[in-house]
């Protein structure tokens, strides 16, 4: 599966798609990136006159790249145009270290811990443009075709 095909299989769209591209992907890990739009809807209220990307959105970005992209890659053989993956986030434990401002580009690196019985659990981290650690944690989800 090419990364182009993989991105087409993602079940998200604007304004809730937080993947721009996949830099590399294998059975055990994925690296991808996203640039937060200056005018994203959540900056209007988070915070008043002080736009900062909400932690829940950072977690979503990490889950979309780190869990869903990797999960689709792992299920590639079973997927086609009519067979879409069913996805559910089941747990996340996240620590945040630095703020992400409007327009910032982030890179997400995810390493598979386990993928068995349809459950994918990954150690995921997010880095900013200076390669500083923005957030890291453990995300789990159920994925099946």
């Amino acid at each position, binding site marked *: 599966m090419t990364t182009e095909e993989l991105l087409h299989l993602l079940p998200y769209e604007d304004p809730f798609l937080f993947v721009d591209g996949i830099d590399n992907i294998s059975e055990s890990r994925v690296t991808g990136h996203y640039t937060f739009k200056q005018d994203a809807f959540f900056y209007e209220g988070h915070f008043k006159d002080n736009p900062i990307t909400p932690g829940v959105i950072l977690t979503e970005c990490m889950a979309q790249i780190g869990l869903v992209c990797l999960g689709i890659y792992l299920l590639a053989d079973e997927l086609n145009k009519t067979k879409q993956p069913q996805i*559910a986030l*089941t*747990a996340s434990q996240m620590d945040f270290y630095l703020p992400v401002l409007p327009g910032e580009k982030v890179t997400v690196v995810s390493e598979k811990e*386990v993928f*068995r*019985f*349809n*459950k994918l659990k990954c150690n995921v981290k997010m880095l900013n443009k200076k390669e500083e650690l923005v957030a890291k944690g453990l995300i*789990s*989800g*159920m994925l099946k075709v």
Partner: protein
Amino acid sequence: MNKDELIAKLKPIIAPYVQDEEAFKNLTEDTDFVNDLKINSANLVDIILDIEDEFNIRLENEDMEQMLNVRSAMAIVTSKLNS
């Protein structure tokens, strides 16, 4: 390992994932993981993986499908330990 010893080993594995604490207090061999303890499918996988580590066994898809209550979990663990 007798039945009581086995239940005593299984209880701490199950405990972190239980949603119905009252049902867990009254746990018997007939206690159903999903219907009684309200454990979801994602956490059922965690329990399976923790059982594998605790007893140093390997469980397969068909074991997972059969593991509906405490009794079936004990039966599967016992048969794996004896095989």
